[in-house]
């Protein structure tokens, strides 16, 4: 019998550390990643001909980014690395990959999913205008391409990334028109005990806030988004928000970066038939797994990093190692129990901090009920909030997948990544039931669009 076949999907911090751990045990994992270069999104690498230094790109996290990149580079000839390769489906103990039009079905004895996260979005009037970008996207523009998304940028949303990216823009010389946070300052005070789980990270966050203010950029908390204004053909011209005192403020801008923290990319876990459970704190369904990352699924499946639950890049490194150790242990390989205990403790600390973040920067679910009927909810299919409400009224649909079947919300080519959570909130608010009862969009292959020419060359 050959050595156990371990597949790792994703080459961000979780995937790289998982791969290192598997290699350290003497096995050769297959590492499949959509990116051209390893690093994932948060430690995304710039193209080979760019010259900026690590500290310019990653700030306080530069040593960690470098360590992940160097760690991966050291593995290169000890792993089977498939870059620019999409896992489009998982079935019967195989991952199905596509790279260009080449395809393959690869069997596994253990599958470690390190699929990362994308921005969590709450729609608002005008968010379909050209010039509106996800917050994470605005960071990619700067980090990977050295561009700003506009010449006058408003950052709107909540969460640590709002402060990180806006301060990175300021530092890089971009014009930032305003930083607008939907969370109140008092929420941060309430969350302080949990945030103290990682004092240094908390301190970094406070420093970012100071840097934004020092640059003279308006920084407002507790705002309610009103509208992104502009022209459907030429794009964004400004952003209006309502302040705590009920007054409105308009900021002229040609670009908006918006995001409300992140959401895990769980489609592959779903296709691998992992069980999901509702998480009250963050108001979303998450894959069920044990503290080491073992999923509740019919084949040996392990989940690590932000793709399982958004705990940040540092936690992703630890949970990647932990998931790999769990896989090794289940494969009958010797593992260091002491290391497992230490890693569990570390991940636990990140978990406490993440709870603090969720309280300090809550998902503004209450906005869903207030969205006007003509607001686009599903950017792909141009389904409005009113379309969804009317569909519910006419058909009696009272669940996300049913509403999708009748209204096409979440049926477009992003597969509900950017509207799914908001759609559930709109449905729950309109139906006057808890959002857990609205369910979650079921994952459907292909995880991303698959060329009809797939397999053509065979």
């Amino acid at each position, binding site marked *: 019998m050959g050595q156990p076949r371990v597949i790792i999907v994703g080459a961000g911090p979780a995937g790289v550390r998982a791969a290192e751990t598997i290699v350290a045990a003497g096995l050769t994992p297959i590492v499949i990643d959509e990116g051209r270069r390893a690093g994932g999104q948060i430690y995304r690498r710039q193209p080979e001909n760019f010259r900026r230094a690590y500290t310019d790109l990653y700030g306080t996290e530069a040593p960690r980014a470098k360590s992940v990149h160097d760690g991966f580079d050291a593995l290169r000839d000890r792993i089977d690395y498939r870059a620019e390769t999409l896992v489009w489906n998982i079935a019967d103990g195989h991952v199905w990959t596509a790279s260009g039009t080449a395809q393959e079905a690869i069997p596994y004895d253990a599958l470690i999913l390190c699929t990362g996260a994308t921005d969590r979005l709450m729609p608002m009037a005008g968010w*379909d205008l050209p010039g509106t970008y996800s917050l994470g996207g605005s960071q990619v523009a700067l980090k990977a391409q050295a*561009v700003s998304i506009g*010449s006058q940028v408003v950052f709107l949303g909540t969460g640590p990334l709002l402060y990180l990216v806006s301060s990175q823009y300021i530092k890089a010389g971009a014009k930032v028109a305003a930083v607008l946070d939907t969370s109140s300052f008092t929420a941060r005070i309430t969350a302080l005990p949990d945030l103290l789980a990682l004092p240094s990270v908390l301190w970094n966050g406070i420093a970012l806030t100071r840097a934004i203010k020092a640059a003279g950029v308006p920084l407002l908390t507790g705002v309610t988004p009103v509208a992104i204004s502009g022209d459907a053909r*030429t794009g964004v011209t400004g952003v209006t928000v309502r302040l705590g005192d009920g007054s409105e403020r308009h900021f002229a801008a040609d670009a908006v970066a918006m995001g409300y923290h992140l959401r895990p*990319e769980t489609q592959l876990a779903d296709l691998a038939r992992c069980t999901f459970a509702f998480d009250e704190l963050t108001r979303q369904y998450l894959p069920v797994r044990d503290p080491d990352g073992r999923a509740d699924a019919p084949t040996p499946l392990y989940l690590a990093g932000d793709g399982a639950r958004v705990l940040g890049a540092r936690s992703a490194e630890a949970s990647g190692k932990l998931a790999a150790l769990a896989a090794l242990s289940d494969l009958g390989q010797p593992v260091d129990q002491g290391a497992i205990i230490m890693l569990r403790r570390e991940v636990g600390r990140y978990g406490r901090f993440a709870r603090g973040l969720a309280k300090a920067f809550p998902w503004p679910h209450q906005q869903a009920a207030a969205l006007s009927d003509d607001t686009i909810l599903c*950017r792909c299919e141009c389904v409005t909030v009113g379309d969804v409400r009317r569909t519910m009224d006419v058909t009696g649909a009272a669940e996300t997948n049913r509403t999708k079947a009748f209204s096409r919300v979440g049926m477009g*080519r992003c597969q509900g990544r*950017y509207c799914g959570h908001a759609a559930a909130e709109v449905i729950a608010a309109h139906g006057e039931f808890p959002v857990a009862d609205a369910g979650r969009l079921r994952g459907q292959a292909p995880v991303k669009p698959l060329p009809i020419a797939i397999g053509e060359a065979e």
Partner: protein
Amino acid sequence: MSQGRFVRLAERDRSPIHITIDGTRVQAMEGDTLMVAMLTAGGTLRQSEFTDGNRAGFCLMGACQDCWVWTDSGHRLRACSTIAEDGMSVTTSQPGASWANHG
């Protein structure tokens, strides 16, 4: 909007390349994604299928599929994850279906 949407902040000394957008030749830089090449030269990427508006991408990480543009032969390219190459030619609206039935 004829001027660019994206603003270059650094890495401005890379080699120039040229791409063609809807028949117009524009300059970009080696290492640009197609999206950056297009949006430093113009304001939008494509027409929306269902409205009279335009789109200019959204996630920049290959997840939203909003930044599709087309080669002259009608193959789609995801602009945010495609590297711009010298001589590349793209269109911002899906080329008319060559397969249209007649009657």
